[in-house]
């Protein structure tokens, strides 16, 4: 079986069984690609580190990187990246069409009404989980950056992209 098929199969599984987004998917990705012997555990840790230093979802980053390393070709990257995306792409599309068609249905309305407070909690849990020593390396500047960014994003109309750029420049100057 060609390496491409194996790659596509591995990332198909990651795309369809990876729930919870980003870091929740890490162990699944690790299991698939390290167990296949495509990369070593150390290389996997490197990929995670690079993902933290580049934009974009870690699922995409790992697919693009491993796809290239395994096949030594851009096509490997494209194949792995598309297969990790396509299953959920179709599922989201199908579900949102179904929901829109039945948007006046009382039960569907009720479901989304029940989901709203849960989603607020999910976002809050994501914020809580990121408040760790990886993201806050000291108790002074890190916290100052976080508080200032919050004030800017919440109380002003400044685009969050500029806040990220400013925080990056600031980090470059002080660290």
């Amino acid at each position: 079986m060609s390496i491409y098929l194996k790659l596509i199969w591995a990332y198909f599984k990651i795309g369809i069984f990876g729930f919870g987004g980003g870091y929740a998917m890490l162990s699944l990705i690790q299991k698939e690609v390290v167990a296949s012997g495509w990369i070593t555990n150390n290389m996997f840790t490197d990929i995670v580190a690079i993902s933290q230093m580049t934009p974009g979802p870690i699922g995409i980053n790992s697919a693009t990187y491993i796809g290239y390393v395994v096949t030594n070709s851009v096509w490997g990257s494209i194949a792995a990246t598309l297969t990790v995306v396509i299953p959920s792409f179709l599922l989201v599309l199908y579900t949102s069409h179904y929901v829109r068609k039945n948007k006046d249905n009382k039960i569907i309305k009720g479901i989304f009404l029940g989901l709203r407070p849960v989603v607020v909690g999910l976002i809050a849990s994501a914020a809580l989980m990121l408040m760790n020593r990886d993201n806050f390396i000291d108790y002074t500047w890190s916290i100052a950056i976080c508080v200032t960014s919050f004030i800017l994003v919440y109380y002003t109309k400044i685009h969050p992209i500029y806040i990220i750029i400013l925080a990056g420049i600031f980090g470059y100057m002080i660290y």
Partner: protein
Amino acid sequence: MLREYLRLFFSFLRIGAFTFGGGWAMISIIEKEIVSSKKWIDREEFLDLLAMAQAMPGILAVNIAVAVGDKICGKRGSVFAALGTILPSFVIILCIAIFLTPETIKNNETISSIFKGIRPAVVALIIAPVITSAKSAKINIKTIIIPIGVALLIFSNIPYISNPILFIVLGALGGAYYSKKANPK
């Protein structure tokens, strides 16, 4: 129509290029790009799309892009939004894979100090939508226990319980039950 698709594509290209720290960090940028400045969708709809995107498997950032793109421009819109989200990280990672070794990035002092500044800002970008989404979900004294409970239970890392999917299912069931009770037929 093509102009609409391209606007959507470039919006999500910007979003993809500046999303550090996973799908949740996108929310602030999407709120600015799509909800408040272009007014393509309103806050409550956005919250419902987030719920759906999180309930599906796969990459959260892409799921959010697909749901928002489909809402604004239909099926083709979702393709443009998804491609926009993926493209920046695809190109950057491919360049790294082809031209650099992981060590060059990992041990680069400049990049690492830039990211020491960016990471706490990303956390702020996730705290802000907690408050804005609580407002659009019309959270009150009675319902505030739900988001607080969900956040703490997921954060405390209890096996089997600290699972976002569990709370999505519970929220959906609770909402469905409540709607039947409130509107008996």
